[in-house]
């Protein structure tokens, strides 16, 4: 049994910026905030808002650490997020069949 609402997933991932974030995190085990920002050409504030939404939905998790005395936030997909994203892609594929 799936432990998430199917309709909610669609809305949450469907935004372009969140779709981009999820796609980047699908490739990597984790990715830094600045890397995601550069890849999707977003501002700090805008990206933070979307990352928070995904974090609140438990699709991603964040780990904060210090590298060379600088604070670094690393994001990764959770199992729930991975499943939701895979379902989202499946749904898109079904639509174009």
């Amino acid at each position, binding site marked *: 049994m799936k432990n998430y609402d199917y309709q909610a997933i669609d809305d949450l991932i469907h935004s372009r910026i969140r779709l981009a974030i999820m*796609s980047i995190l699908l490739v990597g085990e984790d990715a830094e905030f600045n890397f995601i920002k550069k*890849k999707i050409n977003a501002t700090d504030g805008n990206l933070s808002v979307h990352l928070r939404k995904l974090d609140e939905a438990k699709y991603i998790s964040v780990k904060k650490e210090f590298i060379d005395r600088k604070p670094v936030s690393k994001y990764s997909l959770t199992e729930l997020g991975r499943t939701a994203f895979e379902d989202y892609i499946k749904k898109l*594929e079904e*639509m174009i069949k």
Partner: protein
Amino acid sequence: MKKEQAINDLNYIKQIIEDTKKTTVDNGIGFIIWGIIVSIGLVSTYFLIITKNFTLTTPIWTILISGGWIYSIIESIKKKKRNVIRSYTDKVVGSVWASLGVVMTILGFYATIVGALQYLYLASFMALQVGIGFFITATIFKQNYMIVIAIVWWISALFTMAFPGLYVLLAMGIMMLLFQVAPGIYIYLNYKSQIIEDK
């Protein structure tokens, strides 16, 4: 959602995934360092044997291989911190080369000592494994030239198994420079240009 939009979204996802994968390429320094280490080992062993200084071969290999492992361990720790993204493909390729390194160390320092493998065929077995490493790396990173390199290593293994001799040490030493160090330099240059592009 319309069909066109679904196609657009799928293309968008594919494009981002492909673009992100490009960022996760290896810097090639490991290929260069290990290629030089093994090349020095093979060539120096060749000259030590022809000058009949047999006792020096084991200490030289011990120093070289230990140095290589110390470098690899330090580099993997640094890489973990330095990388802005840690990909699964990098992890798989890293694990493949690390496990091949362990096997080669076991073959070189254990199998030959206990007599499970003759010294004469050691370089051939190493060539087989270097071929495996290149083939898997080629498949994962879609680098066709590496498949050619893998085949070259496997052919050299077949040849040196059929025609063993002291010359194999020298030939493999040169092959290391051509088919391990040179591809490493190529990977390094690509990595550098990728970093400049990202900046």
